[in-house]
C-alpha cells in the first residue's frame, strides 16, 4: 500500500483525513482507489481523463513526469501540489 497525502482543501471529502492508505500500481489506479474510498475526489484531481493541469504530483519527493501512468511503488508517498511556472 502507498500513502496519499490529501491537500488541505480536499480533506472535506476524506472526513478530515490527511494521510490515506491507497493501492495501485500507477497514479491512475491510486486515484481510482481514492475515488472508491472518497467519492467525488477524482473530479478534483483529474479532468478529461488526465491530471488537472493545475495539479502537480510528487511521488517519493520527485515531481512525476508520467501523468496518470506514473508508477507508484509499495510504500510510496504521494502528494498533490499546485503546478507552478518558473521565472528566469
Amino acid at each position, binding site marked *: 500500500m502507498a500513502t496519499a497525502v490529501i491537500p488541505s482543501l480536499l480533506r472535506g471529502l476524506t472526513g478530515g483525513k490527511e494521510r490515506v492508505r491507497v493501492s495501485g500500481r500507477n497514479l491512475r489506479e491510486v486515484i481510482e482507489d481514492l475515488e472508491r474510498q472518497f467519492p467525488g475526489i477524482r473530479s478534483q484531481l483529474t*479532468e478529461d481523463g488526465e491530471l488537472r*493541469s493545475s495539479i502537480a504530483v510528487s511521488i517519493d519527493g*520527485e515531481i512525476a*513526469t508520467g501523468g496518470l501512468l506514473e508508477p507508484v511503488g509499495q510504500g510510496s508517498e504521494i502528494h498533490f501540489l*499546485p503546478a*507552478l511556472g*518558473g521565472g*528566469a
Partner: protein
Amino acid sequence: MAEAGTNGHFKVIGTRPIRHDGVDKVTGRAKYGADYSFPGMLYGKVLRSPHAHAIIKSINFDKALKLPGVKAVVTSADLPEAEDKAEQVGEAAMNPRYLSMNILARGKVLYDGHAVAAVAATSPHIAEEALKLIEVDYEVLPPVMRLEDAMKPGAEILLPNLRNKEEGDNPTNVAQHLQFKRGDVEAAFKAADFVVEREFRTETVHQGYIEPHNAVGIYNADGHATIYCSTQGAFDVRSMSAQVLGIPVGKIKVVPAEIGGGFGGKTTIYLEPLAVLLSKKTGRPVKLVMTRAEVLRATGPTSGSKIRVKMGATRDGRITAAQVWMAYEAGAFPGSPVAAGAMTILAPYAIENVLIDAYDVVVNRPKSAAYRAPGATNAAFASETVIDELAEKCGIDPLDMRIMNGAKEGTPQVAGPPYKRIGFIETCEAIKNSEHYRSPLTGKNRGRGVAAGFWFNAGMQSAATVNIHTDGTASVVTGSPDIGGSRASCAMIVAEVLGIPVEDVRPVVTDTDSIGHTDVTGGSRVTFATGMAVYQAAQDAARQLRERAAKVWEKTVDDVELRDGTLYSKGNGVAPMTIRELAKRLARTGGPITGRATVNARGVGPGFAATCIDVEVDPDTGKVQILRCTVAQDAGKAIHPAYVEGQMQGGTAQGIGWALNEEYVYDAQGHLRNTGLLDYRMPTCLDLPMIETIIVEVPNPGHPLGVRGVGEVSIVPPPAAIANAIYRAVGVRMRELPMSPPRLLKAILESGRAYSPSAQEHQAAAAD
C-alpha cells in the same frame, strides 16, 4: 547520480571560458528581434485602452483603413473564440480564452494599455497616425486597482464568468483559494514564548528587461506561419500562438532571436499572434516593436501583494508555528504567483505547525507574468522580517536563528514532500563565516541585515544534439534561448565529456522545427535540464566515436576508451587516435556522428540564497544607500562560475531595486503614471556597490554533474535583508515595498527617532 562531489576530476567544468556569443554581442552583430527585416515588410502598431476598466461598445476603423499606406486593421473579431477552461499551454496551466482576451480585448478593456486593435502600414509613423483614426466607444466602469477593493463584498466584477469553488455560482474577483495545513497552529501559538504578527504590502513591479517585446510574423499562402521574436521559450510562443490564432502547432515555426533580457517576462505572448494575423490579412511580413511605455503599461509585471505573517517561537529560538494569509494581485486575468509564494514563504525552515491561506485576485492592472522566482520575493519580505524580529526577541543572532530552524534533507516542505539533499544550512553558514558578516559596521545611521530565500528550480522537457564535425570539433544544438550564459555551459558540458577544448564546441540555439520540444528558459532549468540532455547527447556521441574506433581497430566498443579527446585501445600495439584524426575517417566508417538525447528531467534540486546587506540611511530624506552586499547561493555545481556569479549579482540587483524604488504608480482612474525608466526607478551602477558572491556547492544528487539551477533565488532575500538593515540603522521596521525615501522618511518621522544608538550597539555586538 551526481559525480560532482570531487571537483578535481573536471577539466572544463568549473573554469571560466569566454562566452561563445560574446564577440557578436559586443560588436553589435548579434541579431535581436527588432533587427529582422524582410522584403515588403510592413510595420504594426497597437491601439491601447486609455481606460483601466470599460465596456467596448463599438470599434470603427473605417477612417484608419482609408489612410494611405495602411494595409490592415485587426480586432478581437479577427480571432477565434477560445475555450474558457484551464489547459496546459506551454509551460503552465492557463486559460486560452483569457490568453486571447489579453492579446486583443474582447468586449471589455481591463487595464490601462490593454490592446484593442492593431494596424499594419508601410511605415511605423503611418501606423501610429492610423491608430488616432480608430474610433472606440467606451462605457467607462470604476477601476478596481487594489486587491483589498477587489475582495470586498459587492466589489465591481472584472470577469463576469469568473467563479471559485468556495463562492459557488457567485461572480467574484477571487480566482482561487489555496490552503496548506500541517499540525495545530493555535495550540502551538498558545505554547510559544514569543509570538510576532505583522502585515506587509508590496507594490507591482516590472522585470525591467532592457529590450522591449518585438515580433515579425510571416504568413504564407500555404497556411504556414513563421514568427521571429524575443522570447524565453520558442515552443511556448508556438503553442500559445497556435491556441490564440486557431492554427495547428505544426504550421507555425518560431525562430527565437537573440534576447535582451527576460527574467520571466518573456515566457508569454503579446505581439506574436498580431504579427501573424496582420501578415495573413496583408500577405506581407509584419513587424511590431513595443515602446518602453507599452512594455510597462501592457506586459506582465509581477504582483503587488498583501501578506500577514504570525510566527511563534520558544525562548531558545525554536520556531514552533507559522500562520500566513496572503493575497496576490494577478492583474486582469487569473494567474498570480501566489501558489509559489505560499509554497516558498516558509520553505527554508522546519516548522511543525503551519497554516497558509493564499488568494489569487484579479484587479485592473496588466496580467502578471513570471518574474525571477515568481511570488517568492514578496513572501520572503514578510517571513524574513518576522523571523528577524523573533531572533531579536530571543536574543539570538539572526543567522543562528535561521541555521537553528533550517530545513535539511528529510524536512517536509510546506506542501508535504520531504527535501532531498539541500544546502540551506551551508548557505547561511557561508554568510556567517564571510569576511563581510564578521567585520564590524560602524558609523551613524548604518545597519546590517540578513535574510534568506528559497526557489524550487524546475526540470521539464529538453532536447539536444551534438554533432561531430570532420575536423574533430563539435556543435551542440538546443532549443533553449540563452538568457544567462547557457550557451557556454552547454558547450562546456560537451567539452568535458568529449575531452576537447571548449573553444572547439559551437553552441547553437535553434528554432522549433529544428530540435525536439524544449520547454521555456525559466525556472532556472536550462543548465539543469537542457544541460542534462546535452550531457546525455555528448555521451551518445562519445559512444559512437568509440564504436568507430573499434571498427577501425577491429575491436569491440568495450575495448575502446575515450579520454581527453583521444581514443585508446585497451590492448597493446595500437596507437591512440585523437577525435580529430578519427573525425576525418567518419565518411568511410559509417557516416556522420550525431549524439542525441531528450529528457523530461527528474531530480530537480532546490536552491537557497542568503544575503547580507549594510545600509546607511539619510534620516533627513529617507534615502537608503547600499554600502556593502554579499550573497551566498547553493549552485549544486557551478558549471561556469563567472556566469553563476553574474546570476547572483543580477538577481540581487533586481531585489535591491524592488526593495528601494520600483513600483507601479497609478492615479485614481487607474492610469499608469510612470511609464518610462526615468520614473520607474531601477537601480543603476551608481546605486550599487560591487555585489560580493559566495558560491556554495552542495551537489544535487539528481543531476549527473550535481547541477541545481542558479537563475532566480538570489532575488528573494534582498528586500527583507534591507528592511532588517534599515531597522538596525534607524530603529524602524519597514513593512511596505518599496522602501523609497518618502515611505521611509514618513516611518522615521512617525517613529520620532532620527537614528538608534542602541541599534548601532546591537550591530557592533553582533559583529563581535
